[in-house]
């Protein structure tokens, strides 16, 4: 299925061991990190994995003796060897080197558009939820339009309108992603708006902007953090699908999606071309998903199933 945006955001709350009456209450509330380490060890592993990838991306030039774009036609499609641990690609470039450089692009694609869509979605969602009325109706109808447009198709159309290229892919994915965030944040805001302390702040004459920033935003944060963590892998997958259809990042930039796309013609005859980037996509997406799951359990935001 279309990989983007299909992560169910249902609460995976497991209920602490089902201890209904002898509750283990009155303990010091552990920090998020402690609870992650205690109940979701795999989240910690995920964080380590993600950090490793980030380090690999930052220090790519130090980790490999090759240039990521050094064409060497006499060394085309060489199988893995001590000189080229993951072999060479169809124009003789070192696959491992391109993996390191590709992780820059793929991580950026995971993070930057997601941050953008989070920012837009949060802002718009809070405005819609807080002010209600016509503003809400208009914003939510626009969000409806974006959401009824199959995300992959919208991305393809926007990429084609703007042309390929890194920046446009960033923009496209942000444009596609904000609506879902806006919906969740809006419903959260609606709930918070009715809460006593917001009511109290309003009665005391606190300005609306201040209420939104000081009272509503911080309480939406857990939700936003979890959404963010779960949207990153979705973005990486969307980019790889776009690249697969030739509409993502354009060469000679390297991204994992692009490498898989180039390598798929060689899947049978030179599998190392696909293997490494596929594995990387899989691992990083799994890591972010596990981390997202863990954060969701620990932060327990109010995410509905839709």
């Amino acid at each position, binding site marked *: 299925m279309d990989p983007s945006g299909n992560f169910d955001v249902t609460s995976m709350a497991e209920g602490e061991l089902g201890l209904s009456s002898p509750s283990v209450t009155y303990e010091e509330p552990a920090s998020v990190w402690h609870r992650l380490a205690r109940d979701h060890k795999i989240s910690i592993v995920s964080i380590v994995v993600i950090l490793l990838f980030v380090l690999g991306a930052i220090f790519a030039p130090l980790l490999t003796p090759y240039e990521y*774009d*050094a*064409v060497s*036609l*006499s060394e*085309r*499609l060489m199988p893995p060897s001590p000189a080229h641990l993951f072999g060479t690609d*169809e*124009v*003789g470039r070192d696959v491992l080197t391109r993996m390191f450089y590709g992780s820059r692009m793929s991580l950026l694609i995971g993070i930057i558009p997601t941050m953008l869509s989070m920012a837009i979605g949060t802002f718009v969602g809070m405005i819609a939820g807080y002010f209600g009325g016509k503003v809400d109706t208009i914003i939510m109808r626009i969000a409806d339009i974006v959401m009824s447009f199959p995300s992959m198709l919208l991305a393809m159309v926007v990429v*084609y309108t703007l*042309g*390929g*290229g890194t920046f446009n892919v960033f923009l496209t994915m942000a444009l596609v992603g904000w609506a879902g965030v806006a919906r969740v944040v809006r419903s959260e805001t609606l709930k918070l708006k009715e809460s006593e302390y917001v009511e109290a702040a309003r009665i005391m004459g606190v300005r609306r902007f201040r209420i939104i920033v000081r009272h509503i935003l911080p309480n939406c944060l857990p939700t936003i953090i979890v959404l963010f963590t779960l949207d990153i892998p979705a973005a990486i997958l969307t980019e790889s699908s776009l690249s697969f259809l*030739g509409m993502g990042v*354009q*060469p*000679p930039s390297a991204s994992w999606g692009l490498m898989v796309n180039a390598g*798929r*013609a*060689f*899947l*049978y*005859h*030179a599998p190392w071309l696909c293997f490494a980037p596929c594995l990387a996509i899989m691992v990083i997406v799994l890591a972010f998903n596990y981390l997202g799951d863990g954060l969701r359990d620990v932060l327990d935001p109010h995410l509905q199933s839709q």
Partner: protein
Amino acid sequence: MLVAPLCGLLAQGCASQADRAKRGSVVTASATEMSTMDMAHNDSVYWAQLNIFDRLFETRMVDGQATVVNSLCTDYRRSEDGLTYDFTLREGVLFSNGDPLTSSDVCYSFSRLLTEAAANTEIPLQIKGGEALMKKEADRLEGFRIKDNTHFSIVLEAPNGGFIAELSSPAMSIVNERVTRTAKNFGKEPTETIGSGPYYAAEWVPNDHFTLRYNEHYWGEEPTVKEAVRRIIPDASTQDLMFQNGEMDIISLSEIDSLIVQRSYKTERASQIVHNQQIGMTFVALNETNRFLKDVRVRKAICMAIDVNDIVHNLMCDDGMRQNGIIPTGIWGHNDKLEGPPFDPDGARALLAEAGYHDGDVSFELALSSNGPQLLYETVSNQLSKIGVKANIKVYDKAAFMEKRLAGEVESFIGTWFMDYNDPANIMAVFFGSPERSKGRSICYPNVDIMQRVSAAKHIVDDERRKKEYQDLERKIVIEDRAWIPLYEGTRLFCTGDRVESFTPFWAGYEDFCVKDVVLKKEARA
């Protein structure tokens, strides 16, 4: 997991895919669907034209040299001044619906290209009165004179030594006048698209498959293939798999990496490989309005920095031939004495320095159309970077690329031109025939005199003189002006499946071919 046992059951039920092939039928695949079978509206996919229709003449490969042979026309005579041609049509030719072929069908076919006024107007426009017909100032083609059912003559506006070769172009296919005149959907509806070729269109599910079936009225020798299905498979690796799985009988290997072809097809199926020179030229176009590229020394440096032998040997696994001119090998008028500059990066650097440029000074856009040869681009760009020239690859969507190119705004690109007919005009005039044409190809060649001569060369009736003039001009453009950077002529490889005895591709090396040139093994015949 649930799937595995299910598939096990299936495996028992269905035999190997190859055993399911229908006798007398071949399956082939292409990534691109035709938009129409109508030659007046299509010029990129020739599958329908080559198999459903005939032309007055055909071009065939004879000993590596393209040669024009008779087809629907059995005899012709050219007048002294090269303006008038008298033709004799083959007797007893029937269309696939049983109608007889007459001179009137030929006249209608040529006139129609002009009245439709879309693609392929260039050749009939040379016939006297062609311009008037196209502009609707006349209602018939003045230069086309019908004598009787099998005899007619054509008068040209100006002499053209390559006219007969041009008549073998797929665009000049002969249609059935009676059916086509009344057709609502010629070219799209199989029953309304009638030709005299060896096959007729039996079924067309756009985007899925197109089926040809043998035309019982065909005048030529009966082919062994009675049915040909052309499936649309956009993905080259899927085609590869399908062929390996026995689901296809003939595969064009041009979209599969040459090294893979070398490692798998050439080693495992060497005897089934069919080579065919692609009569066409791959070249680098440099726009002379660019502030760097207008300097001939820069163009020459670029020329010297591209290691064509490396590309042909390593990127193409020697499935290609280095070219030094404009007129490709295999075309009449090709000059094999032309010599390109040697691969010499140091010399190139020196030339750049002489022109006043240092490392990184020269920088331009190398425009790649979204479906273009990406590896070649990356290779060339990388080779140029070694002499300090930045050729930045920029990917454009096909339409955007076309529009930019037609407006003369592409800074540089790598293109391939395939020949439609066996005459130098088919490439020289296209790129250097006039300032407009040169601009439309984003070369923007400034030398007006040369272009006038290219345009006029076509009208030289004497073959030797015409050849000499073309070669002269070619030398000026390529060697002196470096306005055209030739790379190579490719070889198209086909691989035939176990059911195919022999196969002859189309002379110009298109992916499309004449199905009648496929011979099935005895056991696979109907």
